[in-house]
Each structure stands twice: as C-alpha cells, then as structure tokens.
C-alpha cells in the first residue's frame, strides 16, 4: 500500500484532518470519512456533476479530485449553504420554483449555482444555462432550475447579506 498522507482542510468553515491513501477521491473522503453525504456519486466519470462541491472558490467534481490535492483548501458542500437553520436563498428558491423532482442532482446544482452567482450576481438565462452545463438533471428539463437561479439572484440583489 502507498504511503498514507495527512490532509487538513476546512470543510464548511470547520477544520478537518484525515489520513488517506493518495488514491482516495475527495467524494469518498467527504461521504465516508466526514459523513457529508450531500455531494452525491452519480456517474463517477466527471460528467454528471452530482458530486460538485466548491473548493477554493472553484466548482469542482469531487469524483475527479484526489483528497491529497485539497491540503489547506477551503471546501464548501451543500451542507454549508444554510446559515443558522435558515436556508440559503438558492435552496429556498429551488423549493419555491420546484427546481427539483427526485433531488439527486440538487446538491451539485446548488453548489454550482452558488459559485455562478458569486462570480456573476445577475446572470442572463443563457449565462445560467452555460454556467450549469456541467450538471445533469434527468427530471426537470432544467426550466425550473433556471427559474430558481433567477429567483435567487433577484432575492440576493435586494438582500446581499444572504449571499
């Protein structure tokens, strides 16, 4: 077996440390060692986006990133979006606009949409579709997901503290 590595990073603002083999993928560390099962395993081939998390201000597919690459990183999963029991504007908007059916893609959609709005607080419909094109949804036809992101963007524009 390969040499084990100590990896420390911030997960949703809290410091965590794990000891992993270099080949361990971030999605497994999050789900199986750190009990953060929000990020889902979909295709495991970096196509579907269900495993999307935010890492150092970038949306990444955690099935195609090694945990050892995350030493010192700041990782945000869907579990870190709500604040003090209050849903993030995006989560609330996905609820209100019915931006999901089965929910499997939703944590990835939310974390990706979070980064999109950080970079572009007022995206056009086309920019939302382009920005979410790495996340597949097989239920909604995307229409209500786009509406939810638009709705959250409007809400965040009037209450930026919620961003």
């Amino acid at each position, binding site marked *: 077996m390969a040499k084990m590595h100590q990896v420390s990073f911030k997960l949703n603002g809290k410091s965590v440390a794990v000891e992993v083999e*270099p*080949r361990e*993928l971030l999605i497994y560390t999050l789900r199986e060692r750190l009990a953060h099962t929000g990020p889902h395993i979909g295709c495991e*081939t970096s196509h579907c986006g269900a495993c999307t998390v935010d890492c150092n201000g*970038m949306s*990444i597919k955690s099935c195609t990133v090694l945990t*050892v690459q995350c030493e010192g990183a700041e990782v945000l999963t869907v579990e870190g979006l709500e604040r003090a029991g209050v849903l993030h504007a995006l989560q609330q908007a996905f609820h209100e606009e019915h931006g999901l059916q089965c929910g499997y893609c939703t944590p990835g959609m939310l974390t990706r949409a979070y980064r999109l709005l950080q970079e572009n607080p007022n995206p056009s419909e086309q920019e939302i579709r*382009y920005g979410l*094109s*790495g996340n597949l949804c097989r239920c909604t036809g995307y229409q209500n997901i786009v509406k939810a992101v638009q709705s959250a963007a409007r809400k965040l524009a009037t209450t930026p503290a919620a961003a």
Partner: protein
Amino acid sequence: MIPPSFDYHAPRSIGEAVSLLANLGGEAKLLAGGHSLLPLMKLRFAQPAHLIDLGRIPDLRGIREEGGELVIGAMTTQADLLGSSVVRSKVPLLAEGAGTIADPQVRYKGTIGGDISHGDPGNDQPALMIALDAAFVLTGPKAKRTVKADGHFLGLYSTQLAPDEILTQIRIPIPPAGSGWSYQKLKRKTGDFATAATAVLLQMKGTNVVKVAIALTNVGPTALRAKAAEDALLGRPINESSLAEAARLAMSICAPTADQRGDAEYKTAMCGEMTRRALQAAAARAKS
C-alpha cells in the same frame, strides 16, 4: 471507481519537479488538472507508481504580456484563460476556444499545459496553439528548449515532450490589431469532445486575405494544420468559391476515426463545414 495505488509527490518548484521526474523515471506521471489522467487511471489504462502534482508550483501559473507575446504558465486553467481580460483583449481566439472546452467544473481544474501535453487529438488547445503559432517551453533536468506548436504533435498521445521534461510555459505571439479569429466546434453535448472543430486566425487587406492559419481538431491522430487550405486563400477574398475550395482542401487531409460521434465521411464533412464557418466568422471580425 478508484484509481490503482500510487505514491503522491507535491513539489513546490519547477526545479524540484524536474528532479523528482528524473529520479522516478518512467514510473511517474505528471498530474495537472487530472481530468484526463484520473479517468484513465480509474479505468487502469494508466497505472503510474508515482504522481507528481504540479498544482503547488506558483511559477507554473499565470498570464502576462511580455515583448509582444502572451506568456502563460502551463498550469494556468482553462477558466483562468476564459476569465482573463488580457487574453480576451489580446488573443481572443484563445478565450473563445477555452470557452468551448468541457464544462465549467472541468475548466476550473483543466490546464492549458495538460491539454497540450496529453496529446489527445480530441483536445482543443493543440489546434488553437497551431493556429496562434504558439511556442512551448520544455524544461528538462539539464536544459530548457523551446519548440513550435506546429510540429509538436507527433501522433496519438505522442508529442515532442521527452519523458524527463515538463511543459512549463506557453508563449503566444500577440496577433496584429485587426486580426480576425474564430473557433468553430461541433459537439454532441456539453462535455463531449469535438465531432470536428476548426481554429482560424487571419488578416485581411481590403477584401483579400493576406495571412491565415487554419488548424483542425479531432479529425486525425493529432491536431492538423490545413496548409493547402491556407495557401489557397492567400490574396483572395472570402466568398463562396474560396470557402468551398478551402473547405475541400481541409477535408482532403482529414483521417478521422469512426466512433459514436459519426463515421469518417460524416466527420470529414463536418470539418469542412466548421472550416467554412470559422473562416466566415474570422473574416467578419477582421479589420484591414
């Protein structure tokens, strides 16, 4: 799907990375964005005993303008290129091409150097680099050398990069003001490789083409430079007959592999169409 076991190294400088590569020899692979290598490892198509992660070397990252060139660190990501104001203003073909690569998440991780060095004919940067007349700085244990993009790609997964070298820098001559550009890519869906794609950079004088570079993605074992198509356009206007001739000549060098994206005949025809569209779009953007 979990990759086979390997040892992980995260050097902090180019020198450290080069000596690690020299010491570990053929047992090691360089890890850039990892979005080609890790999937290959999951499938056991690659089973390196060591991975050397280039992600912790600040000198490999960044974009700067220097003496009429854009100098780009090899670990600069596709998202960095897409979001860079200097790339957008000085080498817009590169920004347009980067924006067609994979999807947002992959562009945050995927690097220009990894894209070039992997030698996959489906990758987009090789044709963009050929069209832009880029040069690559390859750093080995004893010396650095600079090679031209045109001629760097030798075959399927094969480039001039030696096993003990690292691609450290990409140098792109900034095209003259008024140059026209376009990257036209046909893909089945976001995230897929091109069925066919064409990169064009040109200059016009009056209504005539005075300089043009045309490079093709995913229609041969490497990106291809369409030299005969370029020559046929020189001194001519962009019109139906010159476009038809350029498309025919580009198609004449295509040797695509049939796969789920289509048979060879279809892919070749799509290369002709992408070439036609790229030339039209580039000419429309050019100012003489």
